[in-house]
């Protein structure tokens, strides 16, 4: 029982950064913007969160710093793509390269620190339920926040005016503009929100999962988050499923060794990347599947008519 609970707890911890990054990117893509710089925003969040927590001693300061850093980097992407009309694919790549460089530069001072255990919140009574208790109700605040965020975004996209406008901007930006909505400003706001989410996702790695700072510690999770959005067919609830699925494959390598699987660790580490490819193939070969559910204006820049 404890063993199973242990695996499930590590599954939740492995999936949470993916949830944050994927749900943020999902909202961005629903507004028609393809930001491939998730990896860069996550790594910047990881170092900003770590530095914030080391310097202030407060977990809250760390998380807020990560959000601010992620959003700032995202707005750089927003400026270059939305105002200066650069290609979104290339700019996203630039964001990743830049984020990796900047984080390594500012992270130099912090390589020798390690953090105390991140504060855990046991929900009274519920956390004492066997198996479910420790897995769901005895986690840190960020796990609860990630679940709340998915629910809130599902609700906001489906039932609120803001969600409707956002989807309109993503489906047909010319029509949204003609109705008088400020397409560029809405997109900039959404891009900053996505950056803040990715930042928290990155901070979860350096504050909770490891908890130390290592260069390039995101190790492709930003790209996996992008794959999860495709997997989810741009629907919020499905990102949860995707994140827990990929989280599961990530911890397989840790537990594989515990089970005494005697192949070199590198092969086990390949699993999440290989699974990502397989899942992408399955999703994209569904008849019409992902092409139909992708927002219509995804990746296309909007330029105001004269």
């Amino acid at each position: 029982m404890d063993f199973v609970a242990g695996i499930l707890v590590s599954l939740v911890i492995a999936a949470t950064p993916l949830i944050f990054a994927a749900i943020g990117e999902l909202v961005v893509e629903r507004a028609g913007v393809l930001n491939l710089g998730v990896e860069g925003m996550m790594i910047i969040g990881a170092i900003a969160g770590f530095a914030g927590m080391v310097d202030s001693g407060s977990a809250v300061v760390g998380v807020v710093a990560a959000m601010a850093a992620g959003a700032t980097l995202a707005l750089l992407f927003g400026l270059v793509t939305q105002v200066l009309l650069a290609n979104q694919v290339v700019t996203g790549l630039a964001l990743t390269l830049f984020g990796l460089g900047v984080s390594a530069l500012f992270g130099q001072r912090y390589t020798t620190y390690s953090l105390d255990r991140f504060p855990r919140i046991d929900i009274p009574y519920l956390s004492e339920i066997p198996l479910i208790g420790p897995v769901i109700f005895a986690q840190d605040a960020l796990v609860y926040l990630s679940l709340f965020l998915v629910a809130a975004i599902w609700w906001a996209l489906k039932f609120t005016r803001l969600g409707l406008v956002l989807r309109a901007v993503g489906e047909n930006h010319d029509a949204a503009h003609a109705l008088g909505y400020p397409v560029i400003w809405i997109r900039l706001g959404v891009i900053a929100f996505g950056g803040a989410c990715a930042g928290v996702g990155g901070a979860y790695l350096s504050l909770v999962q490891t908890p130390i700072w290592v260069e390039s510690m995101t190790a492709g999770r930003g790209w996996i988050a992008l794959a999860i959005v495709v997997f989810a067919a741009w629907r919020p609830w499905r990102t949860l499923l995707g994140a827990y699925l990929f989280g599961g494959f990530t911890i397989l390598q840790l537990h594989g060794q515990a089970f005494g699987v005697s192949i070199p660790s590198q092969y086990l580490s390949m699993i999440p990347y290989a699974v990502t490819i397989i899942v992408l193939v399955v999703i994209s070969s569904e008849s019409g599947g992902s092409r139909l559910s992708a927002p219509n204006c995804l990746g296309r820049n909007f330029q105001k008519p004269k």
Partner: protein
Amino acid sequence: MLRLVPRQTGSTWMLWSAPVLAVILTVMAGGLMFLSLDVDPVAALGHILLDPFSTTYARAELLVKSAPLALIGLGLSLGFRAGVWNIGAEGQFTLGALGGGVVALAFWNVEGAWLFPLICLGGIASGMAWAAIPAYLKVRHNTNEILVSLMLTYIAVLLISALVSGPLRDPEGYNFPESRMFHASAVAPILIEGTRAHIGIALAPLIAVILWGVLMRHEIGYGVRLFGDAPKAARFAGFTEKGTVWFCLLLSGGLAGLAGALEATGPLGQLVPDLPAGYGFTAIIVAFLGRLTPLGVLVGAFALGVTYIGGESAQVAMSLPAAVVGVFQGMLLFFLLSIDVLVTNRVQWVVPAAAKIKAGP
């Protein structure tokens, strides 16, 4: 109020002055970055910009760094033109090094002039094979080539690490995760005595000229350009999307593989786990800096080579962090993408609507 107004046709003058402006802005922003880090900006920029040209050895090292960047960038630039986003050149580079390295180790201590060309072919074939995976998945299942080629990069990096700590490990190497040193017939011929400048430095311009011919004078290159500018017209003219995807990915994969084989048999002389050093990603910047043209890529590779050699020099002389190089490269791409808006648009002064109302009698 300043407003962007689309140009009728792209400005050729802006197209070629944008990279120069981007470099100037990067140097200025780099100076500000050094100031914020409490580093003397003049000294640091001096090391980065001048040291790569100071000695014969440094100049040769500059070419050693530029060669793989040019080879990879050449392949990528064709794909990017056609809208085929191969982001996994780093993985194809790594597989090329592995493929070439395996040939070298298989014929260990066998002498012969045929061996080095065979190693190069092994590298090209391995890089192509790795790039064939996203190509096949793209044409057969319409799977996003960006994500697939990137995931394959992570797998390639883990694969070389696994192989050099396992089957390819040097039997007399005290368990270090690295292969044997390649023997004399298996290393890349040296061009300049006393330096590490190898044959790849001559291959890069040669291939650039060939690709220029293919791109500007051959039907295949016409198809690639047409797919980038007007996909519908390209289909109407009889070029298929599948053919373009295959051609672009196999070409860029093969060239990245060749660069990998040359890196393993040239400056390194063996297979090591940290062989993938980010050339595949830097080459993306090279391709854009070179305006996606073969001859431009050569100049772009040279410029990015300067950041590597100059960055290393600044690290040694002023104990600057290694990450400075990455920040410089990222900034360069950002500035370039930002300035590029002026290629297709011009800035116009527009009187704001509110001001017009006020200006009445």
